[in-house]
């Protein structure tokens, strides 16, 4: 199942609908990294609310997405990690270090808006 990428102002939003296969994740990574420059976006939000399992591949891919997008000149926020998923990830050592996270889409947008204002 492919992940749709929506454009909202200067921000791209990718919302995971259900558990994704590894191929879907690769596809999403390619899509986001291309689109972010093509659409001149300054921020990307990846919404994982629907994911109730996060394996190491998904977690690594999210981290790669965030780092690649930074290299392409934009900010990434991962939003909507479920409490159980968060704790399971931490126990597996998948802490998404250096990646911004927020509670939900609204918080993510607020974070990016803040970041656009003072980009320190």
């Amino acid at each position, binding site marked *: 199942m492919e992940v749709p990428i929506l454009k909202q102002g200067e921000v791209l939003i990718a919302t995971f609908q259900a558990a994704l296969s590894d191929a879907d994740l690769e596809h999403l990574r390619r899509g986001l990294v291309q689109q972010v420059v093509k659409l001149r976006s300054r921020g990307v939000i990846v919404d994982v609310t629907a994911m109730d399992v996060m394996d190491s591949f998904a977690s690594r891919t999210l981290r790669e997405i965030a780092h690649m997008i930074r290299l392409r000149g934009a900010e990434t926020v*991962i*939003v909507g*990690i479920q*409490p*159980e998923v*968060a*704790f399971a*990830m*931490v*126990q597996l050592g998948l*802490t*998404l270090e250096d990646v911004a*996270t*927020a*509670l*939900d889409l609204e*918080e*993510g947008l607020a*974070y990016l808006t803040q970041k656009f204002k003072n980009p320190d």
Partner: protein
Amino acid sequence: MVLVANLQGAQANRLHKVQALQRKENRFMSKREFTSRDSEARGGPGVEIVRSEAPSELLRELVAHLRQNRTQLREEWVVRITETRLLTAMTKEEIFAEATSVYDSYVEALETEAFEALQAYARNLSERIIPRGVETHEVVGIVLLLRDVLARSLFAKYQTDFKKLNRILDAYEPAANRIANTVAVGFVQERERVIRQQQEAIRELSTPVLQVRERLLILPIIGVIDPQRARQLTEQLLRGIRTNRAKVVVIDITGVAAMDVTVANHLVQTVEASRLLGATVIVTGLSPEIAQTLVTIGVDLGKMNTVGDLQGGIEQAERLLGYKVVTLAETR
């Protein structure tokens, strides 16, 4: 040869059994009716003979005796209880009242051999006396005392007829043991139930997640943290972050004196997991011992935001959220 002897014995048994059944209809027959004592008394060695009285009849006689001497035996029992300094948490009148109902239930259980009523009574009794601080050994003690008192009265009554005394005791003791067992188990079960209930209550009370301001939670932890409690704490905190849409959490561990490596690691994991939900965690009130533990396990302090005391933690949280507290005089 042995086989033949056994067969003969078995046949003899069967024959006697039939005769006995014909003689006394409706009488309950159990294995206990065949005893070596009887065989010595009635027949040659190896041949077993049905005893003249079934245990149920003996029990009936026994119960009649206990009912007859109820007042006296009960008094004696109460005296023994006071002498041995059991049930010191209760007044004399209370002991007497309880003793009366215990005695009656005891005799009833002996008579009917139905232990459900006694079990229910034991549970009810335990429910009443556990909050008064009555210990397990006291409850077991009084039941054993009663058993003792009753056995002594049986000795006194049948001391002239030794065989009968033996048979009466054969009937009495298994039943009495079962009663003692039932009461003790009932008491212990009730006690365990109370303990379980209290543990649950403590667990629920011990991890409140409180909102002090919009988007600011505090989690004061007091007492010993075991791995189970740590886990529950994390679950409650993460759920609290989600429901209160918190951005900053202050975990205050002033009330925690020590922490082992597992729990310290768990705390660090909780901080990480909270970050994944988009919340910043500030840990306050670390004791020197805990600071030592954290350093020993090599916690990356860059990830942990720590402040000396709760007040400082809340102040920093407010700064992060963009609040500024000013006195009314300053605003004028």
